[in-house]
């Protein structure tokens, strides 16, 4: 039983295929070589003229877990209004509002309908891992995975403060990956969420947490070294200190320097590229950030583009979200301190193109996309739902690929913001090949998904087929076909078959004796037993729908 996709125009950057016309063969969920015996081909689909890419991978999207569900619960008015925007939500235009808090079911459907076959929850709080996996288990169609948050948990900060050696830290980090069924490690406002619990209101890179007397720099270095030494493919995922604050680009540059040459991923970097020039003391520092990214080849970033309309920001960064709560629209905010582990802040946000700051944020994101030279090191995200719902990706892709469309949108912005942006001078237009890098090959490579994000022999047959259209938004909104593990699941932008994806994890080896001290810690200070903290793989394979894929890490020389 082999399916043949004939005359596909293939964009497969992992194999340097830039529009090569060829046939693809699928058998048992995988891409296979051309069969010697043509009679084995049971189905053949003529894709002449169609653009074919691997299924897209969203490497940063808040799809499951406590704060996502708080956002849903906080905003019943969003749920009530979504019926008006369906199905037009797939075709977005500047100023249109999307549905920022989809249910778990809708999340899977909307992703696959756009040709995305995997999404990664970037802020799984270890004590909340069970909820995150429950929600992701209820997310159909796509593969998923999560980055576990560390660096504000009291267990780790105690280790750092008592100067435990790197090996002990490494063992703890590996134990967290195993216990929470995650594929990477994230740090949010290093040390800041914890410091907020001690009533500190801001934390700079070299400012100490009042209680532990350790700095964000130490936290970053310790965690990035652990991730690196454990051989975890996904570099430490860093949400820098001072999110959203004017002038924070300096912190971002300093954070890059603090990496000491070890791989580091700076997430939603748009929110961390702000200067404080001009009358309003808020300006674009995209040029400085892009220059630093271009120079520092060991650093990657995703943008976290904002798009205009109503959304909700859901972040682990309780410290900065508490400061931002005054900008909430509608005016409400849920802020939590959670379990000596981390925290969260959820507040609705309405980005308006006539608002100076919002308009400039929009421009800064695009300036970054267009000024960072290497598409393998910059990723297409809106930090769903924080900058915009993920359903606006096709619109964002058009902004990147279509200069006149972009410039028309720019001309509608707040005039003061226009005066503070160099966007019109950036002529770059992304190619299909570059889009395929950012949303497929690059993302898979970054996370360490060896059999995803490309169309080589042996790869999982996650394949998206588009009709080449000048209107890239229309094109990327509605693929002709999407195959998930070789099964045809979307036809003409609509789901035709419901499937359930896998959960991707990374499980580096570690010294199990790490549990001795952890067990004592849980007994003394936590309010659940260590055994119940850990997520049993069976919990994810529950109901026979879910499954776990363990990815081997990179091999260290």
């Amino acid at each position, binding site marked *: 039983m082999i399916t043949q996709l004939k005359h596909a125009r293939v964009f497969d950057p992992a194999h340097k295929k830039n529009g090569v016309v060829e046939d693809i063969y699928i058998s048992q969920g995988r891409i296979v070589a051309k069969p010697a015996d043509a009679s084995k081909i049971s189905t053949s689909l003529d894709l002449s003229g169609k653009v074919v890419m691997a299924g897209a991978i969203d490497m940063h999207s808040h799809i*499951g877990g*406590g704060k*996502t*569900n708080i956002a*849903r*619960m*906080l*905003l*019943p008015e969003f*749920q*009530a209004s979504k*019926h008006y925007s369906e199905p037009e939500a797939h075709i977005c235009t500047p100023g249109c509002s999307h549905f920022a*808090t989809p*249910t*778990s*079911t809708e999340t899977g459907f909307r992703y696959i309908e756009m040709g995305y076959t995997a999404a990664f929850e970037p802020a799984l*709080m270890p*004590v*909340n891992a*069970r*909820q995150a996996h*429950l*929600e992701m288990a*209820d997310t159909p169609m796509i593969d998923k995975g999560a980055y576990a948050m560390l660096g504000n948990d*009291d267990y780790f900060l*105690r280790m750092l403060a008592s100067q435990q050696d790197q090996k002990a830290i490494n063992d703890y980090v590996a134990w967290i990956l195993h216990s929470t069924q995650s594929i990477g490690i994230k740090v949010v406002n290093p040390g800041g969420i914890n410091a*907020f*619990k*001690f*009533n500190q209101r801001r934390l700079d890179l070299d400012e100490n947490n009042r*209680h532990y007397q350790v700095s964000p720099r130490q936290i970053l270095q310790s965690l990035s070294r652990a991730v690196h030494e454990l051989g975890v493919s996904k570099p430490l995922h860093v949400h820098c200190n001072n999110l959203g604050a004017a002038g924070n680009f300096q912190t971002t540059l300093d954070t890059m320097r603090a990496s000491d040459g070890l791989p580091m991923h700076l997430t939603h970097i748009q929110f961390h590229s702000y200067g404080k020039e001009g009358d309003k003391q808020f300006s674009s520092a995209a040029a400085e950030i892009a220059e630093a990214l271009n120079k520092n080849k060991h650093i990657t970033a995703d943008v976290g583009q904002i798009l205009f309309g109503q959304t909700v920001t859901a972040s682990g960064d309780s410290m900065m979200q*508490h400061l931002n*709560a005054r900008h*909430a629209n509608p*005016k*409400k*905010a*849920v*802020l*939590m*301190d*959670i*379990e*000596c*582990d981390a925290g969260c802040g*959820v*507040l609705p946000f309405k980005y308006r193109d006539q608002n100076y700051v919002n308009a400039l944020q929009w421009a800064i994101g695009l300036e970054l996309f267009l000024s960072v030279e290497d598409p393998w090191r910059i990723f297409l995200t809106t930090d769903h739902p924080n900058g915009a719902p993920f359903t606006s990706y096709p619109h964002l892709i058009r902004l990147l690929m279509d200069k006149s469309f972009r410039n028309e949108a720019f001309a509608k912005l707040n005039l003061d913001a226009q005066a503070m942006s160099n966007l019109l001078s950036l002529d770059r237009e992304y190619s299909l090949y570059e889009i395929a890098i950012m949303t497929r090959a690059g993302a898979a490579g970054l996370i360490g998904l060896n059999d995803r994000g490309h169309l080589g022999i042996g790869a999982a047959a996650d394949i998206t087929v588009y009709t080449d259209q000048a209107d890239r938004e229309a094109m990327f909104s509605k693929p002709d076909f999407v195959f998930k593990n070789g099964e045809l699941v979307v036809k003409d932008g609509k789901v035709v078959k419901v499937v359930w994806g896998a959960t991707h994890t990374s499980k580096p080896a570690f010294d199990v004796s790490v549990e001795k001290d952890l067990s004592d810690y849980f007994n*003394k*200070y*936590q*309010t*659940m*037993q260590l*055994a*119940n903290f850990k997520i*049993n793989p069976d*919990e994810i394979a529950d109901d026979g729908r879910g499954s776990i894929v363990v990815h081997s890490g990179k091999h260290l020389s």
Partner: protein
Amino acid sequence: MTAANSPIPTSHHTCPACGLLCDDLPLDGHGSISASFSCAKSQRYFSQAATAQNQLASVDGQACDLNTALAAAAKILQNSQQTLIAGLGTDVQGMRAILPLAEKCQATLDHMHSESSLRNTLAMQNSGWQTTTLSEVKNRADLILAIGTDIVSSHPRFFEKLVWNKDSLFNKGTPHVVYLAVDEADTQAGVAPDGTSPTVLAADKKALPAILNTLNALCNPAYAKSNKAASVAGLSMAALKALLEKIQAANYAVVVWSASELAYPHAELTVQSITQLIAKLNEQTRVAGLSLNSGDGDISVNQTSTWLSGFPSRNRFQHDQVSYDTQHFSTALQLKSCDALLWVSTFNPKPPPDFAGPSIVIGHPNTLFERPPAVFIPVGVPAMHDSGTLFRMDGSIALPLKKLQASSLPRLVEVINQLADLMP
């Protein structure tokens, strides 16, 4: 080897009897807890489950096999134009099964405690809130302010586990406890192990709106200065000012309330006054809220319903859309217009409310009825005969419920799924 005749390790067994979800019970494999254990609620939960009475389903009070009962239940649902699924005393897995059935039936859903939990939900949906979780309380709280609740009636081990704990991460002293609008007689749990008495600001609970408004106003220095009233609801202005100063002086004050104790109209506004006060005080110092839940899976049902349907409790499937109406979808109002009731209560043997139409009850085997429902299907009791997942009162932690004993009782999830399969 079955659990029924040999004690199994139960040291991690989660107790669903209250929202604390303790997992450190001295429980043996037979479901009995050592008599010296501090929590009567937990003992009652497991002993009740261990003596499961009805093993058989029934139709109109006549015992029958499961398939007969399922067929009768399916017939009722098929004939119904407007179904109410209420009670919802279940966990995550139960709610995962119930929602697709509700969609098939185009039913209205309401949890048995939503009258209480909505006071919180509405306040949160209106203005948000700033809250904390149990381990933060245990390690950071140096002041506990209990508003309108003795805490221990609903959450018996609260002080034992989270306030009088000897070990804490930051070497805080023994927390001071303040009761506001709680009878003096109900404040014994707040006496510290060293004998230190709590501060008691006794007042009528119904006066809480006025008291909380005053506390909020006193945070405004201009008002505090110009105010001429000497007291509110019997509490002196000086005492209220002293309370605010105490909170401001604390490193991490935790304000505890129980929505179920605020049983008067528009009590969501009282919750909002509490959360506004917390937000105001957080401008300078750290204060966090902690709401006590009512139980019977209330938090789990809201969480699961929200990620699957978009809304917490009091929602409805109609015309293939989900709607949310915290007023009209109440059990009390729906019972006046619905033509079939499916009542679910697995944790406690809670019978359904009076209803003139046909009732299907899927629940605790010890449920007693004044008159038999059209269909009764006893199912396994969670954490005794059935496994699952339950959310703790603070909403951030979900813990596994494990099966302790083999049982002939069917699982709720299986019964609901089979029922859904019988629906067109």
